[in-house]
């Protein structure tokens, strides 16, 4: 088997699995910070109790994120050593900075959140919640900086086949960093707030801890609703950026085979790369041009503009991009429904809405993964856009057999910890908000 393909598969599996956890942490840490802020202001025990409950869940999610993140820190050396040599002058720094500025902060203060409620003052506890929130978002910024540099490299010069840093700020805040950061963070807020809302909804449907569940539901549905609407704007801005800075990626997202002014937006279709056409296409005329340039006649580059060996695959980016948008629109519909219920003070009463929230929990995860797949596959055949090909990025001394071995073990271990982690989180949820102190965590976070 092709070692580059196996290395890509392994990176996809390990990064894709890891990417289940950080978005959850982003959103949960926000909901927890809001609840702790309410506790500091109103001093009612109910805020503390529901926050402590969510912190127990955050603890499990966080540990799984840490465990699965370790492999990624070293994956570039393990499987992508040619990449590490070629762009290490730029790519290593954000990873190291993430450790220095974010991982330490996050892991030290989540220790205080999980174990230290009675050991620090309420203000210090609030500060810990804030620092966990802050550090997890800062961590997101560094990793998005690293990944965005692969999408839209800047602030470097090529010297003997290696990209050397010439301007740190240009490299860090390259043309896609900010918009991709906002988009990813909002995706995390949608994810974490829907998880919290789903847990609350389950309690309400069972008629358990009504007051506490209603509080969590209210806070998290407000976060969810606001974020879902904001995400429409950030998604749009991100798409415009892609069209401007990586036109072949946008052409793949939209299966736009030929350059057109007045390009249509394809709502549905099955791209056929061999014949360069889209079967069963349903299109809105001129809408892509309008979205990209705010003008019905904007000229949008098609795949025909690019040499065949520089075109991304079309099917995965197309499917990922469109499904992500579909889920995003669904979240907005849920946001509107939720806002209506909130306005009439009947949020906890609509059983249909509560059930919908629970059923929708997997969708933000799917949307995150699909968006990520669209972004990364859409960058192919490049590891670093127009700088380094993926085929030239893999380790030269790691044979396919070794990668297959580690791939199988990764799959086995991740299956095991996914099953165990999920069952533990479900157990914590069933145990509920009113857990007595004796069941407090002992060993891990």
């Amino acid at each position: 088997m092709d070692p580059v393909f196996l290395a890509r598969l392994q990176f996809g599996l390990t990064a894709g699995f890891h990417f289940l956890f950080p978005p959850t942490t982003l959103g949960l840490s926000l909901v927890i910070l809001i609840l702790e802020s309410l506790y500091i202001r109103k001093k009612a025990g109910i805020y503390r109790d529901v926050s402590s409950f969510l912190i127990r869940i955050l603890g499990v999610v966080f540990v799984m994120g840490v465990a699965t993140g370790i492999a990624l820190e070293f994956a570039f050396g393990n499987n992508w050593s040619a990449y590490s040599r070629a762009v290490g002058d730029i790519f290593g720094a954000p990873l190291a900075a993430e450790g220095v500025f974010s991982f330490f902060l996050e892991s030290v203060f989540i220790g205080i959140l999980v174990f230290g409620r009675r050991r620090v003052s309420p203000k210090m506890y609030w500060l810990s919640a804030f620092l966990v929130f802050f550090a997890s978002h800062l961590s997101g910024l560094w990793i998005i900086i690293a990944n965005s540099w692969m999408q839209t490299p800047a602030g470097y010069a090529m010297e003997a086949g290696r990209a050397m840093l010439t301007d740190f700020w240009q490299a860090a805040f390259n043309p896609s960093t900010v918009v991709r950061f906002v988009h990813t963070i909002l995706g995390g807020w949608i994810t974490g707030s829907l998880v919290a809302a789903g847990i609350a909804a389950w309690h309400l449907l069972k008629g358990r801890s009504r007051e506490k569940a209603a509080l969590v539901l209210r806070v998290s549905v407000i976060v969810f609703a606001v974020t879902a609407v904001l995400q429409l704007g950030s998604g749009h801005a991100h798409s415009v950026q892609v069209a401007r800075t990586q036109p072949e990626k946008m052409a793949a997202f939209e299966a736009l085979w030929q350059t057109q002014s007045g390009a249509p937006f394809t709502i549905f279709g099955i791209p056929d790369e061999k014949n360069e056409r889209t079967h069963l296409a349903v299109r809105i005329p001129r809408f892509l041009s309008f979205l990209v340039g705010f003008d019905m006649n904007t000229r949008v580059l098609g795949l025909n503009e690019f040499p065949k060996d520089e075109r991304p695959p079309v099917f995965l980016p197309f499917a990922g991009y469109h499904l992500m948008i579909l889920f995003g629109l669904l979240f907005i519909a849920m946001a509107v429904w939720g806002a209506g219920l909130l306005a009439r003070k009947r949020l906890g009463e609509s059983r249909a809405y509560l059930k919908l929230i629970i059923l929708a929990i997997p969708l933000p995860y799917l949307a995150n993964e699909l968006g990520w797949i669209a972004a990364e596959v859409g960058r192919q055949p490049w590891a670093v856009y127009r700088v380094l090909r993926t085929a030239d990025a893999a380790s030269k001394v790691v044979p396919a057999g070794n990668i297959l071995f580690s791939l199988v073990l990764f799959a086995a271990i991740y299956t095991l910890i996914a099953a165990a982690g999920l069952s533990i989180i479900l157990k914590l949820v069933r145990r509920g908000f009113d857990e007595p102190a004796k069941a407090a965590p002992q060993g891990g976070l």
Partner: protein
Amino acid sequence: METWALLRNVWFLLVGVLLAGYSVLDGFDLGVGVLFPFLARDEREKTFLVRSIGPVWDGNEVWLLTGGGALFAAFPHAYATVFSGFYLALMLVLFSLILRAVSLEFRTHDGALKGLWEAAFVIGSLLPALLFGVALGNVVVGVPIDAQMEYAGNFFTLLRPLPLVFGLLGLAAFLLHGSAWAALKTSGALQERARRTARKMTVLTGIFYLLSFVAVWIYLPGALKRIAAWIFAALVWLSLGFLISALKRRKDGRAFAFSSLIFLSLWGNIGAIHYPNLVRATDPALSLTITNSSSSALTLKVMLIIALVGMPLVIGYTIYAYRVFKGKAGLDEAGY
């Protein structure tokens, strides 16, 4: 060019500091991880030991992640050569660290599979504790490297006498550090057992240190011409001596300080015999050094600013967190 050379030397030191910080901090929870089923006589004692590392192990492990990131950023060629070259061995370390990270958490919540997660925690602590030294020993004694800076050996190349002795030395030192921590954080019979284990491990560490020294003498005779190697060696022996006396007098805090000092001296020792190499090659002309493996002066400078801003903060709030959780580990929530 002058500044560049200076920056490379600073980063050689800083990567060493990060790895030394890792071994001092994560070292004790790796050690507790291997020892806890043997030190504890019942569930209650197991819980004491696990709780003694519960709030801090995760922050400790970040030292390794940051050390790896710093190596990548400062010396990308060394990072690339070692992590691709030692692929299978490092995969074993990775799988161990992954299982170890979740098993402590899962053990608490998953009653049915408690035994499985405990075993995963022990093995997940044991393998890294052993393999870190083996990997370091290879980098120090030298491995086959080709003209493209790529590793030219195989998995079995890694299992030579000096690396294996380094591995055993590392393991003994981690166990020593873990038992010194356990003595500090527990009380009663469990504490007495931890102190006895710490004394045995001190002796074992001394023996493997002596063997390592002999191995260096045989395989890297030139390395011992440096006076610094002897100074750090003296520090190791002094620390071992003070450690034994502290344990005898039940000064657990002082004992833990000396077991930390042992790690720092060992790293000083490594630096003294290894500088300016990052990965020694069997053919010395092909070695990866701080000069031929480093990033640009600009990247090293940016990284230095990041380190100078970030690390004092890290040290500050890490000390704060240890103070929050100071004292003996207990069973009630207040005793975390």
